[in-house]
């Protein structure tokens, strides 16, 4: 069967194939959104490569150089580029260390809350009836409780029970942030359920489980990815809030939120740099995640996707 159109001839030779691949990757790279990526770089680069980037020991206090100003101001020096905190630890190194906790909490918090939300959402949407009602009443209950309140209680209770480290924070985030996923996924599932390809799958003999996994789930991935990137910022904010209130990351480990809570009294009394840089990093990270979410939504929406990619040739 012929289809109209001139076929592009791929020239022989692996060198040419290599060139085409490089060109294709290059083209793809130019379409990426730079601003969100730059905003998210600190979180990811610092979080992943942390210990390799330390300028000094993030834990050793050195009261001799405590509260030293950032390098470009009077009294600063470039060995401690962003200054030192109230016990003489290099601020930049502390920020790098803090990124790691924030990253772990954000990634796992989003992952677990997402999985829980998706599972309940697809189940509610697909099964309908009593299951749907039951799950939605649970959703209503969770929505009635203020999120920060819920997170505090869970994190505090888990710490009391002896669970250490970042786990209480992650669990607290997972339990309090799954609801938006569930509602969105349920809505999308309800609309996908009506589509003809689901009917066709049923006629083929597919079990409900197979339909949910292979037909419905791929259809909701797009919106989940968009929501997850935005929730990344939300998770960081949640962690910052919890650390600020004392149930999050515990000293001597640090996270950006904790750095702010420990030192926010210094904002007016001169050593403003200690809480400020942490605050800036949190802000641009949340901004970056929101912008990335927006871009992904446009990139993955099939209608706008056509405008962003070349028209495929038959």
């Amino acid at each position, binding site marked *: 069967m012929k289809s109209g159109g001139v076929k592009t001839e791929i020239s022989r030779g692996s060198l040419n194939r290599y060139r085409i691949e490089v060109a294709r990757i290059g083209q793809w790279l130019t379409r990426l959104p730079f601003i969100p990526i730059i905003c998210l770089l600190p979180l990811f680069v610092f979080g992943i490569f942390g210990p390799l980037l330390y300028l000094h020991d993030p834990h050793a206090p050195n009261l001799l150089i405590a509260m030293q100003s950032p390098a470009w101001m009077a009294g600063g020096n470039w060995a401690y580029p962003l200054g030192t905190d109230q016990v003489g630890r290099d601020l930049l190194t502390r920020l790098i260390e803090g990124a790691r906790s924030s990253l772990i909490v954000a990634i796992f918090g989003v992952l677990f809350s997402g999985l829980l939300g998706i599972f309940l959402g697809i189940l509610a949407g697909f099964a309908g009836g009593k299951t749907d009602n039951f799950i939605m009443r649970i959703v209503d209950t969770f929505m009635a409780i203020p999120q920060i309140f819920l997170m505090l209680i869970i994190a505090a209770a888990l710490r009391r029970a002896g669970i250490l480290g970042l786990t209480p924070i992650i669990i607290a985030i997972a339990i309090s942030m799954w609801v938006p996923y569930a509602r969105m996924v349920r809505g999308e599932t309800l609309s996908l359920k009506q589509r*003809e390809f689901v009917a066709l*799958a049923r006629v*083929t003999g*597919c079990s409900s489980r197979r339909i949910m996994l292979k037909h419905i789930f791929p*259809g909701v991935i797009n919106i989940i990815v968009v929501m997850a990137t935005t929730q990344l910022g939300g998770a960081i904010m949640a962690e910052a809030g919890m650390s600020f209130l004392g149930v999050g990351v515990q000293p001597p480990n640090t996270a950006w939120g904790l750095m702010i809570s420990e030192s926010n009294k210094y904002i007016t009394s001169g050593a403003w740099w200690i809480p400020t840089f942490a605050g800036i990093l949190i802000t641009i990270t949340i901004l970056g995640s929101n912008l990335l979410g927006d871009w992904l939504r446009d990139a993955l929406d*099939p209608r706008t996707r056509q405008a962003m990619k070349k028209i495929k040739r*038959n």
Partner: protein
Amino acid sequence: MENLLEVQHLVKYFPISAGGFFRRRYKSCQAVDDISFTVPKGSCFGLAGESGSGKSTLAKLLLLLEQATRGSILFEGRDVRHFRSRSDLLWYRSRLQTVFQDAGSSLSPRMRIQDIVSEPLEVHNQKQLSLSQIHARAEEVLHDVGLGANILTRYPHELSGGQKQRVAIARAIILEPAMVILDEPVSALDVSVRAQILNLLADLQEKHNLTYLIIAHDLAVLQQITTRIAVMYLGQIVEIGNTPAVFSQPTHPYTQALLAAMPVPDPRHIKRVSALSGEIGNPIDPPPGCRFHPRCPQAGAECKTRLPVLYEVSPGHEVACSLTEAGQWKS
């Protein structure tokens, strides 16, 4: 010739909420109202009708996508409506497949063509084939419908309308079913592509010993490929018979009107029958007596009160109209 499919007095009423504040009142949408017909093995059975005729609902009932209210569906002699066990249902699914009207929405948008076509085999795998064997079979079937292996890794939105419909057909026949239900297989396609698909369907029927049940509103298409045809109006069969007989001697006034209303690509053709008046009736509130009487140019006094039953006007050709010779009333 043995009958592959036997439908007897099939009925489907949908309860429709008709308002009421304290006590909900329900009306019923009589989508399919006492349908009986048989499809012999190897034949091509056509269902003609417009919207509200119930032909799509009938397809859903046969595919067990909806539960019938009453009646029986016998497939290869077995009563399909009362299947309960999963293995029985799976047997039925492997013997009866379907192709929907709009291939664009009936193919899973996020699955590759290879997976779409292989899926029935993966679900039913009676011969315990390995995945690579399944994929090889998918490629074979795609070749059968005129598509090359180059589309295996593509997604549905990358294909043209004709190609998508071919993929849908490939998926339907990969299990070598006994029967395929085709719901408006070509109406969503471009005119120049329709002939390709119709010829393909005819070829496949011969090659794979298939039996077809084709639902369409385009009578020219039905005349081209069906061997037996039933005309439906508001949930009932008004005329049924072998295709040549029905087209050469349309007896029911609705069949005559339907044939006369079809646009003919011949400028010298003059329509002898004037257009039907009125709107197609509402299945929620069907007219009493013969459902076609409000629009029928030949309606008599009795047509308004008594429902005509199918009466044989010549061997194999039945019509439900009081005006046929010795027409019978439903008592």
